C-alpha cells in the first residue's frame, strides 16, 4: 500500500513536471532570432535552407504528408518562428488556404493533408526561422 502511494505520488510528480516543462516550452517566445541576439553570438550565419517534400501525384481522399526540412549550415533547425504551407487550386481567382505545420522530426515540419477534389494545386511553404522569412516558388501537384 505504501509502495503504491509512493509510486503514485512520484508518478504524479513526474507527470506534473513533464507537463510543466512542455507547457512552459510553448509559452516562451519562438525566438529563433533570440539566439542571434545573444551578445556572445554575433557570428552571422547564412539564411537557413528549406527543402520541401510533397508527392506530386495523389488520389482524392488520401491523406498525404507535406513536409519541409529546415537546415542551417547543414544542421537541422528546430527553433522556428513559423512554418506554414499554402495550398491553392491552380485556377484563376481561386482562394489559397494556409496550414500551420508542426514539428515532426529533427528539423522537419509537416502537415497531413487530404485533397478532396480532383485538379492541379500549387503547394508552397512559408518558413520564418533564424531571423529570415524564407519562401520559394510553388510545387504543382496533381490530384486524380
Amino acid at each position: 500500500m505504501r509502495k503504491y502511494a509512493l509510486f503514485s505520488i512520484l508518478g504524479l510528480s513526474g507527470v506534473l513536471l513533464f507537463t510543466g516543462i512542455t507547457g512552459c516550452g510553448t509559452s516562451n517566445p519562438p525566438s529563433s532570432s533570440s539566439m542571434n541576439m545573444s551578445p556572445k553570438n554575433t557570428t552571422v550565419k547564412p539564411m537557413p535552407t528549406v527543402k520541401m517534400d510533397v508527392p506530386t501525384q495523389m488520389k482524392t481522399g488520401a491523406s498525404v504528408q507535406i513536409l519541409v526540412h529546415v537546415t542551417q549550415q547543414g544542421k537541422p533547425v528546430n527553433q522556428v518562428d513559423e512554418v506554414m504551407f499554402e495550398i491553392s487550386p491552380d485556377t484563376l481567382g481561386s482562394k489559397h488556404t494556409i496550414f500551420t505545420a508542426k514539428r515532426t522530426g529533427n528539423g522537419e515540419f509537416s502537415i497531413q493533408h487530404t485533397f478532396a477534389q480532383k485538379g492541379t494545386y500549387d503547394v508552397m511553404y512559408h518558413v520564418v526561422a533564424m531571423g529570415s522569412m524564407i519562401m520559394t516558388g510553388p510545387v504543382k501537384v496533381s490530384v486524380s
Partner: protein
Amino acid sequence: MFQKKTVLTLVAAVTVSTILAGCGSPSAKSGGPAASTAPSTATEGPTNLKWPVSDFKAIDQNGQSVTLADLKGKVWIADVFYSSCPTVCPPIADNMAHLQKMLKDKGIPVEIVSFSVDPQYETPKSLKIFGQEHGADFSNWHFLAGYSFDWIKQFAQDTLKTTVAQVPNSRIFSHPVNWYVVNQSGVIETFYDGLHPYYNEIVKTVQSLEAKR
C-alpha cells in the same frame, strides 16, 4: 515513515515550485501586437556590431528622395518588407507602428526606414497604401523603393549581413525579419526580431543612443 513522508512532500513541493517558477510569466514586455516575453538571455541585442550602412539613394512614399546623408545625426531603425508580402510583413509593420507610437509617447526621436525588396513593383502609392494599412505615422517613417532589386540584394548582403532572394519569375521574396538599430553615424549597433519584438529593450537602446547625441 515520517522521513518517507517528508521526502514525498519535498518531491511534490519541488515539482510544483519548479513548474510554477518555469511558467511564471516574466512579463517584462509592454503589450504590443505581437508582444512576447523576454528570456534573460535575450534581453540585449548583439551590441557593438558596428556594421556601416552602405550609401543609398531611394524614393519614399511621397515621391521624395531619401539618402543615407539625410539620416546623418539621427538614430534610426531599418527593416525590409514588400507591400504584397503575404505573411510576415503585415504583422511586422503592425509591430513597428506600435514601437513608433511607444517612442513618440516617450518623446524619443527616431526615424524608421523600411526598404522594399520589390522595387520593380513598388510605387509611392503602393508604399503609402501599405503604410496606411498598418498605422504608420509618415512624419518619421519612410517606406523606400526607387532602386534596383540587385541593389537591395547587395545592400542586404553588405549592410545587413543577410540574404534577400527572389524566386525567379515571381514576386516572392525571402528576406530578413529583423529590425536594425542604426546610430547617428550611419552604423548598425544591434538588431532585434521584428516579428516578436522586445519593445522595452528596443526603446532603451534607442534612448541610450539618442543620449549620446
